């Protein structure tokens, strides 16, 4: 749209939201990908734009903490705000009840302070700046444009009723199903509306499947059945303009089943709880008291390309800013006490592969 074009800074790369702003909430990316927002602007930045349409996002839950729900809530709410149809499935008896907990955009008075203000305070020595990758998409420069794509969602403020009661939302309970066929059919119907092949709607849709292999489901021991469900879901999603987010608890599955699911994911995230009052961690990390949990980014979707996405850091702390807004921050190690022994713990900013692979020289 012409009006948006003039507001974009002239230094912004061409990959801005101009072309796709016909449909609210879509953004073009490299290799023909189109992104939709995850509802959390920090996560969009980490993933290089957002969730890719046609991709399968899997979130590995921590059985001890419900942090995956925070991610789901933001994802679902963002979609509803953009009038993107949503299909939600959960193992509870009444999934609709969960919709009442979806967050609403925060008031503009509490704008989350973003990097531009930080950069004034922290000046990075010029020769190190080259090691920091420039963010690909123009998200920061224009606040108005940013809110078109990703809202700052206030987790304490419920979403207005009219978003939830519209025909946009469909809920499926899988608690009493003997198997996943019902859910598979509902997903197939939903995905058919957004098929890229037969000129389906060119807007985007979202599917959120919560804890699909939780023990209260009757089929939770039918691992091959569950795997083939995810596989067919992935196949159908690939040729449609939908992002499918599935959360599952890997600790409740056999290791090979969990690995298969991880391989099938296009984008793979995991959330972990942080123990309260852990003195070791408190010494190791700054801001430990504010942290709610940890987010690990294992894989980022690479559709239509073979180049892997290597992130600067793969572990982030989950914090609730002002107790309302979900933010992800890079981990900062506290200054190391020179007299102490160990300095690098497991929660380092970089990911560490602990496998020892023998090399033959």
């Amino acid at each position, binding site marked *: 749209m012409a009006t948006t074009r003039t507001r974009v800074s002239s230094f912004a790369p061409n990959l801005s939201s101009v072309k796709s702003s016909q449909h609210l909430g879509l953004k073009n990316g490299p290799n023909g990908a189109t992104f939709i927002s995850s509802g959390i602007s920090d996560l969009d930045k980490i993933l290089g734009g957002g969730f890719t349409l046609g991709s399968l996002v899997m979130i590995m839950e921590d059985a001890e903490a419900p942090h995956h729900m925070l991610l789901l809530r933001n994802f679902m709410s963002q979609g509803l705000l953009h009038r993107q149809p949503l299909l939600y499935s959960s193992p509870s008896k009444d999934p609709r009840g969960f919709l009442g907990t979806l967050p609403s955009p925060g008031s503009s008075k509490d704008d989350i302070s973003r990097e531009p203000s930080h950069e004034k305070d922290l000046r990075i020595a010029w020769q190190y700046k080259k090691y920091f990758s420039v963010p690909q998409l123009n998200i920061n420069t224009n606040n108005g444009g940013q809110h078109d794509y990703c809202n700052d969602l206030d987790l304490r403020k419920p979403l207005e009723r009219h978003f939830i009661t519209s025909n946009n939302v469909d809920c499926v309970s899988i608690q009493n199903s003997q198997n996943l066929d019902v859910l598979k059919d509902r997903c197939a119907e939903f995905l058919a509306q957004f098929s890229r092949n037969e000129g389906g709607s060119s807007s985007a849709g979202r599917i959120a499947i919560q804890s699909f292999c939780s023990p209260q489901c009757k089929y939770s021991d039918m691992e091959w059945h569950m795997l083939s469900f995810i596989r067919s879901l992935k196949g159908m999603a690939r040729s449609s303009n939908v992002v499918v987010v599935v959360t599952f608890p890997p600790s409740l599955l*056999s290791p090979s089943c969990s690995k298969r699911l991880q391989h099938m994911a296009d984008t793979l995230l995991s959330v972990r709880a942080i123990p309260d009052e852990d003195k070791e961690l408190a010494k190791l990390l700054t801001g430990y008291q504010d942290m709610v949990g940890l987010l690990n980014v294992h894989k980022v979707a690479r559709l239509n390309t*073979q180049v892997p996405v*290597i992130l600067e850091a793969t572990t982030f702390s989950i914090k609730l800013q002002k107790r309302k807004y979900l933010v992800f921050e890079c981990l900062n190690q506290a200054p190391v006490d020179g007299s102490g022994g160990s300095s690098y713990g497991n929660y380092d900013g970089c990911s560490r592969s602990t496998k020892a692979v023998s090399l033959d020289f």
Partner: protein
Amino acid sequence: MEQQGLDLMDQALGFHSNKAQQQPWPLCGRFVLVEDCVDTSGAFVLHHILKRSFTSHPSSAVIFLAFANPINHYDRVLRKLGCNLASQRDTGRFFFLDMLMLQCPVEGEPNHDGLAAVFEKIERVINELSPENKKFVTVIVDDISCLELAANGSSNDVLDFLHYCYTLTSENGYALVALNHQDIYSDGERPAFKLEIEYLADILVKVDPLATGLAKDVHGQVMVLNKETQKQHGISSIKVNNFHFKIKENNTEYFYAGTRT
């Protein structure tokens, strides 16, 4: 075949410029198994071999069994690597068998021959090839773990299928290439499945992340184990190559550890 640009991967797989005349396609009658894990994908090796298959000989054909990605994905990736799959398909040199939605019927139901049907399809495609394109055929499977899923976890069916394919390709001097996710089987209940396939393979390409973690300049390490390169005096040799790689849009760079150019 291009004489220049024989990188470490080509050499490890057995491409030698001076032997190009005698045995145009060094993967003839051989089974290349590529293994990877969640942290580092080995799909780039498949793309590399796919591209080389077309340039190996003017009359080679490729049959691609895709269980993991649709054709648009491969089309875009290969186009950036300098290979046009669409035109190869039009000239009858590239056959894409889309198996994304293939699901074999569960045991107990009458039609228990899901994978047998796939094999028959491969045979049919080969038989229908024009004689010029029939000389060097490469069958590529992406990937075995998805194939196992499609077979409802029946690893015996998958092993049988691979044996059949291997027999078909080795007897006719064709090549078989497959990708497998080895970390699925390492802590699992059936490590024998992975070991059987590794045993069957003539060339094993293992892709792993660096032991020290992620890096922007080096995406991982590769170990290529090439069995029986030349059976001289009845002694079979095993060649092992280790090197690092960096994947780019238009090619993949291979270099020895520490020699990043």
